[in-house]
């Protein structure tokens, strides 16, 4: 009885294959999309945290916490 249950779930082998295929598609998709982006856009995007639009007083330096 136990063997029936654990081995006879219809097409269980498919789940593993489907999941690997889905991952492969997503991964290659993300890779391709990323590589196709312009270098300048990637540089702009990477620089976003450093340009937060804050209006700071000039006296405030980067070494405040040092």
């Amino acid at each position, binding site marked *: 009885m136990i063997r029936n249950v654990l081995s006879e779930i219809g097409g269980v082998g498919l789940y593993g294959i489907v999941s690997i295929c*889905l991952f492969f598609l997503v991964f290659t998709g993300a890779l391709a999309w990323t590589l196709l982006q312009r270098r300048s856009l990637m540089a702009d995007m990477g620089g976003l*945290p450093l340009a937060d639009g804050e209006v700071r007083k000039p006296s405030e330096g980067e070494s405040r916490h040092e």
Partner: protein
Amino acid sequence: MKTETFRYDNRIVRAFAIATMIWGVVGMGAGLLAAVQLFWPEANLSLQFVTFGRLRPLHTNAVIFAFVGNGMFMGIYYSLQRLCKARMFSDALSWINFWGWNAIIVAAAITLPLGFTTSKEYAELEWPIDLAITLIWVAFTVNLMGTLLKRREKHLYVAIWFYIATAVTVAVLHIVNSLEIPAGPFKSYSLYAGVQDALVQWWYGHNAVAFFLTTPFLGLMYYFLPKAANRPVFSYRLSIIHFWALIFLYIWAGPHHLLYTALPDWAQSLGMVFSVMLVAPSWGGMLNGLLTLRGAWDRVRQDPVLKFMVVAVTAYGMATLEGPALSIKSVNSLSHYTDWTIAHVHVGALGWNGFMIFSMLYWLVPRLWNTELHSLKLANWHFWLGLLGIMFYAVPMYWAGITQGLMWKQFTPDGFLQYPNFLETVLQIVPMYRLRAIGGSLYLIGTVIGVYNLTRTMRRGAFEPETEAQAAPRVEEESAPRLAGHWHRWIESKAVLFTLLATVAILIGGAVEIVPMYLIRSNVPTLSSVKPYTPLEVLGRDLYIREGCVGCHSQMIRPFRSETERYGEYSKAGEYVFDHPFLWGSKRTGPDLQRVGGKYPDAWHYNHMEDPRSTSPGSIMPPYPWLLTQRLDTNALPARIAALRRVGVPYPPGFEHGDAQKQLEAQAATIIESLRQGSITNAPADREIIGLIAYLQRLGTDAKTALATPIPAIALNPNP
């Protein structure tokens, strides 16, 4: 170009920062008390409310949801506004988020010591609190999405992607895993039973680690690390691949918590393969973080922000190398149920989450209060005590885990267990428990110093409630196709599209894993001898849940000879069809209890619960004398039987009105009689201990009859 002037809200960041510091000390303090109880059980002060079983979930919830949760919101509320160049969508929602979340934590701090728990790890809170969590999470998600829609910055920085994935995934996980039927104001039964409950729980449990402790903090790393290093992330392209690969893999990895259990083999293999693959994106992210510091390593020596950050990212790398290793079935067969797991999670919690939070606090507080850090020296003390604390915590736990795992499996040349007495393997590692408490103390002392330093910094500065900022308004892209209707423009917005994609990604993983388990529901191997619990056993099982016994005792015997020799026949899926919730456990500080029914006389259990050392000299289990004096709450029985029937346990209609009570009294009378024969003559029949004994004596007995004839191993092989 036209620019707009606006203000970032710093008050909400301050509120979350203060809450983070307070809950950090509380959560770590609870952890230290729990750690001390493992070598000195009297440290519970004879109070049931702070005994290990109830204290452990309090510690895990306080650290995960209170300390790390508030820290996460602190970082998100600060960075999201600046990355979007917009104030939060709604100040009201921000404050609902803050007060609601912290009220939930207070509710947890009250209910968990009182024993109101579902027993499902990291989802222990009972149903009214579950509802509140859902509402507050919706408030946070609406606030997040609203801010994205009103943003001035056209591009969504990668950190925001991680925040979005966190918001949607935690919502899905929490709702699916918390489906339960109430049986009273603070009592419920999981909708799922046994194997299904285990799979849903660990799909949740693992992804709580993934999407609450990891993805938001990766987002925060991608924001605060470039800020602190004052240079952009090493590779923005790598961060995008990191994101998609990570969220798509993480969601499948849950079953690695259930290797060699009664979970079907295909689900175990799926969990293992995806867990091993996870090492690639995780290390991609770690290297991306560390390489961001190229050319700035000299500053790491001086700047506490960078110091904490570098250790945090390194700890992330170590934990994400170890996680896949532990997911390999052969490694897991040794590590599971031991302190190795405890070491693993603490490298993540203390190193990755803790140090990330301290790094953010040391960066944020001087900026928000417009001053300099009170003392660099104290920050260095904090850093080194924290680092030593992690070492002193992790190394003894690795030692303890591997030692005990090997001892459990050790046979004599004649083929008998070398250490048949479980307690012997515990006593061997008690010195490691003492060392671990020293490690935890060092870390906590460091934290207290950090809190003091940050508080002094706050007091010497002047808090800036709002920061003025300027940015150009966002211009709609001319090339974007505009069909009729505002809904289409809404869909076109990348934030929404992106959220949909991320949701689809995580739902696919969950569905492929969980849906088949539902489809086979009718096929779960119902052993004909497995019957629903009797009324007295139901109440006894609820006491087992209330006292958090599952924190130290598993009910899942793996199919190894070392386990079947020690505990009896290994566990089958069909044995758990009436277990709402499942109580398989994940740690064996004490022995497995799956086949404990009938192993000892009733009087042994009575004496053992009153004082475990009277029956097991040297035991580190705490005494439970209150079970002998507190009255069993039989008034709760009708509601509990009715709720269990609603989740699928086949009690006959009307059973709870009359018959159940009579059955309960009759069974209690037989236990009292049995206790008398064991020289315990003064035990009243209406005490909690009677219910607990009934439950313990039932454990595994149904299957014993069904499995009396050994089944050939080949016939049980799930994949012949």
